[in-house]
Structures are given as C-alpha cells and as structure tokens.
C-alpha cells in the first residue's frame, strides 16, 4: 500500500489495514425476561445494526420470544411481544 495504516503480527501477516472494513461494537445491553426496557447512551455512527441473542433460552419445547426493538439516536428501546414468554435478550449494536 502507498499510504494508510497497517498493523502486522510478528510473522509479518497483516492484522488490520485501512483497506479493510469492519463493524465496530458500539454498545451492549441485556433486557430481562418479560420486561420492556429503554437503554440510553448508545453511540452513534453513520450506519448501525442491532443483533439480538436469546440468553438462557428456555430449554426443550417451550414457546419463547426475543424482545422487539427500535433504535433512534442514542436510545435503544426493547419491547416484549409476549408478557409471559419473552426470554432474556442480549443486544449488540454495531456501527461503521
């Protein structure tokens, strides 16, 4: 590369380069089972994505739902689609 940034390991392999692209983890939060939440202070970037992961999902054959969500500005809102069957949800907000 003629200009930019490269980080290399001890074997001279490129670890990171300004020719790369990645998503940076901006924020994490855990919404408790069957509870709505409003999380504030979410950093902003030009493009953001939210991923959700069921945590401690009920084992076996039981009905279970992940939280719904909306992200606006610095606020992440988590809603419960089911009052009794919404499991704990781990949110990750990525940005680039």
């Amino acid at each position: 590369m003629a200009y930019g940034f490269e980080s290399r390991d001890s074997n001279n392999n490129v670890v990171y380069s300004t020719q790369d692209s990645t998503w940076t983890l901006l924020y994490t939060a855990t919404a408790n089972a069957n509870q709505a939440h409003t999380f504030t202070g979410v950093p902003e970037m030009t493009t953001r994505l939210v991923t959700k992961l069921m945590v401690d999902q009920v084992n076996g054959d039981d009905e279970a739902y992940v939280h719904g969500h909306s992200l606006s500005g610095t606020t992440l809102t988590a809603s419960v689609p089911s009052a009794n069957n919404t499991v704990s949800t781990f949110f990750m907000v990525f940005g680039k």
Partner: protein
Amino acid sequence: MAYGLQIKNDDNEILIDSDFAHYHYIGKATYSSTSHIPTMLDGNNTQHSTTGGQHMSSSQVNGDIIKYTIATNSSSSPAPVCFIKPSSTGSSAPHCGIVVTKRSGSSWELWVLQTRSGTYSSPTSYTRPDLYCFSPLNYMTSSQASVGSNTHGLATFSSSGDKTFDSRLKPLKIIGAQVVNAPSIARTASKSNGWNPVFTPDQSSNYNVTRSTSETDASDLMFYAPSLAHSCQEHNENTDGDGFQAQGYSSFFYAWARSDL
C-alpha cells in the same frame, strides 16, 4: 473523541476506536454432546391411544442439536460472539445456527441446530461445525489474554485505562453484515399423514452477503447467526367412538416440533 486513537479506512469508516471494547478471539468452543431433534419424534401418546403408531413420521428430515462450551473470566461476562465455521460450503452444505446461549458459571453453553440429510429412520453421517468465539479483552481468561513474548503490534486503551484493542490477540474483523428475515411459516405443504405427521420444514429464505474485497478466500469465512424466534409446527388428529378409557374414547393426538432456522 477528545483524545485517544481512531483509525478510519479508505471509505472513511471507523476501523479502530480506542473508546470501544473491540472483540478478540478467545478460542474454539469445546464440543460436549449431540442429540437428535425433534425430541418428540417417535413419541407415543399412549394414554389416548386407539391404535399403535401415533408418532411423528420417521420419514421426515431431522436435525441435531450440538452442544459446546466456552470459558470466560467472570460469571457476569456478556455472552461471547461465536461464529460458525461450517464443515462444508455450497448448496448441499447443512444449515446451522445458534439456538440456545446460556450461562454455566463463568462459562457459556451454546447449542447449534444443524440440519441432517437423510431421514430420522435412515440418517446420514454428519460433521459438526466449529465455533470460533470472541469476547472483549476484559472478560478473557488469563490464558486467553496471554500474548506470550509477542511484542509486535498495536494496543489501544480507553479513558479509564482498560485495554480496548490489541492486534496480538486476533481482533474480530466483521467483513459483511446482512439483516435477514425468517419465513413466516416453516412448512406450507401438508403436515398431515394421519397419526404420523411430517414436520420437515420446506420454507427458506436465501440472502447474499456482500463482503469486503480484502477477503477473497471463501473457505476462510465464517458467520454469526443467532436465532431470534421459535417456529412451532402443530398437528392435530382426533377420533370419536365408544369405549372406556381414562379420557373416554374421544381421543385426541397433538404433536408439535421446533425448527428454529
């Protein structure tokens, strides 16, 4: 940012930011066990039985739940991000996704649902996927955070002095992302086969994920696919008649199965 380090790429997108705790590689999750699904396959509602054979059809395609564990340094650590490296690629490769993530002390247990070709009564062999797991640096065990004698690279620290990035510890580089939506129903074909329903999903959605051009070797790619919802399939059968059983002879058979993908 008022201070610290921020590196942007050629497209003016942030690559490294010392304010954020970047995820780094903590190892492959350790395989523990495999079980078949759906769990009710070959079950029999004997209390309401009129004739034998009231179970899901053995001709349906089934899958496996493959369980793994990965250690962190704390019982309050956030769930690790575990990427699936499938055993094969291409149109005939099995589908797989993480369907359960639960804490076990300072470790996390992960369940991967993987489709299995063949049928329940005549399954084919399979190879389980590998799970490559990532976590923020401050939740790594001492062995995961060890850099040994390696003194090459770049590290960043937050304003509170926590290390947020270390190029020696294989920082996660996400080269593509895609929002996907699951089909609204797992199976549109009839499930009915009398007392032996078939729950094999026949609906799927295909997506193409654009990845950055700096990564060209498809065999090196892996993906993160947490499950967001259960897809429950139901089937009812009933019969009327005279007789004497605990529930009478108006028998009712009910079965359902999960298919989270």
